[in-house]
């Protein structure tokens, strides 16, 4: 164990320079969120992630955000266990009928101001699952969505760019 810890001190970090903050995300957000809210949220965000019916591909790339290369926490962005602690609701997947209530409850439990991000093609428009009898709709059909991130799944760089667009860092 000591060897790994010493290596971490001596070697150059693997952490890569951040991707540029996406302008489109910032522009969308400016419409949806008031200046007051952004002042209140400051420059860090707590994120609650909910899988509303995804295939798990998006979760894999969200999990990658914590690795040494992307290191999401250096941007003041972190995941929290409870919607009560969250500023952002990050939702993946088409919303299945079986998950619709849970997603709504999670959203309702978040204190204002709250931002919803629909992550991935399925979250935006159900993707290939459109019309599946188990599917209620896209995330936007169940809770109000502020930002969308396309991809199947979106690469970690794109997710970081979208999140940084919120904090303008």
């Amino acid at each position, binding site marked *: 164990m000591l060897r790994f810890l010493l290596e971490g001190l001596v070697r150059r970090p693997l952490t890569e320079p951040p991707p540029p903050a996406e302008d489109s995300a910032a522009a969308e957000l400016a419409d949806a969120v008031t200046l007051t809210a952004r002042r209140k949220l400051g420059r860090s965000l707590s994120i609650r992630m909910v*899988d509303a019916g995804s*295939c798990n*591909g998006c979760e*894999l790339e969200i999990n990658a955000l914590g*690795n040494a290369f992307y290191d999401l926490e250096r941007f003041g962005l972190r995941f929290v*266990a409870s919607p009560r602690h969250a500023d952002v609701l990050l939702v993946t997947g088409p919303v299945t*009928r079986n998950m619709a209530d849970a997603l709504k409850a999670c959203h309702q439990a978040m204190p204002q101001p709250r931002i919803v991000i629909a992550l991935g093609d399925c979250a935006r428009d159900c993707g290939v699952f459109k019309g599946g009898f188990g599917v209620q709709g896209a995330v936007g059909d169940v809770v109000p969505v502020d930002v969308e991130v396309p991809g199947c799944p979106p690469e970690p760089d794109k997710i970081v760019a979208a999140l940084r667009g919120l904090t303008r860092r």
Partner: protein
Amino acid sequence: MSALEQLIAGGRRVVFPRPWPRAVVEGEGWRAAIAKLVEGVLSLVGLWGDADAVHMALADVATAAIGILSFECVDGRYPSVAALHPPALRLERAIRDLWGLEAEGCPDPRPWLDHGRWTLRHPLAAAPLEAADVRPYPFLSAEGEGLHQIPVGPVHAGIIEPGHFRFTANGETVVRLEQRLGYTHKGIEGLMRGAAIGHAAKLAGRASGDSTVAYTLAFSRAVESALGMRPPARAVWLRALMAELERLANHLGDIGGICNDAAFTLMLAQCGILRERVLRAADTCFGHRLMRDRIVPGGVAADLGDDGRPHLQALVREVRQRFPALIELYDNTASLKDRTAGAGIVTTELARLYACGGFVGRASGRAFDARRTPGYAPYDTLAFDVPVFTRGDVNARVLVRLREVEQSLFLIEQILTSLPPGPIRADLSRVGEAREGAALVEGFRGDVLAWLRLDAEGSVSRCHLRDPSWFQWPLLEAAIEGNIVADFPLCNKSFNCAYSGHDL
């Protein structure tokens, strides 16, 4: 004649299923098959519904031959397999939910995938029923002094799929765990009906994101077996390359994740580096980090260019160089081993009964790997070991993965050496008649079954995908008994069962 051959011979043979024989049997044949399951002569590979029939895929434990028996459900009923053979239980509940076919004598009348939220009941049946009112799900009870219930989910604390776990605990000790799944059920089998092969392949690749290669491989091989065609040799080898990269990425992620759930984040950080390297190599070589939509019926959609090969060789070199230190780290961190050794034990008997595959089965003495038996190209010409352990605890499930990482690296090297030149994709044969096909593929968490029927125009009329987790999830309930609640994340992660792959 083997037991399986006898059962098939006793029924009415169906023409053109491939590669396994299928026969329609009546009550006597169906019950004889159930008896063989109970005896342990046959194991259950799958059980699924169709319009007015149920199909049961069986493997002969001794010879590893596979066959399918079908029972025509006159008046919508069939003799329950689960009444005598528990591994079939959730499968029968799912069949009832989707098709309305009733397993006579099924010990559990509760719905499984249907939470009462769909707009129809029995949505795949010829005549679905109107939805009924939502009723609360009656969880099984546990009686005793000082028991309390802990409901967890469907939304979980971390970045993970949704499912419900109802614990009954005495203090810290878990007395009973009951799972309730189905939260991610999208209706994939319904969407596949009438779908063009290309679109159905996309659906198959999105059943379970971390196993997109295994699923598209199973689906593609099932289509090819139905049409009686083989993809070009180079495609066969590239498919194995992608499959091993997927196995490698998932095992590295899991090893880190399991240790993280024992609060040993250093391993997660180090394994996360190696996993990221694998995903980037996959992206460089095949154009997608998870290699989604890269395996298609007829071959593969992306070739390994001349610049791809050195990337993969560099990847293998790096993992080979860094991995031994991680194994040592795992072995020598006593406080970590203290958590993983002896926790979450799955007995060899349960693994055998459930014909449990993947690392869960192989950690509990069941030496089954679909790459070996029934086996498929090119693994029949590749050298690799199938590691098996018997303790069945979290530690054993970690050890299996550690060994399989080494085996996957070895396989990747062999594939890079022997990769033949040539085309990577063949046109699908037009046969002008209805056909059936099937395949069994070893995904990273176990054997994925794909069975399908194509209509005369070549569209999919029915496709069933069976995730290995159907025979692993129930064993988690057994494994957690007597463990502390705080060890559940550790045990759960050591299983890493699929939610979306299971729910479809």
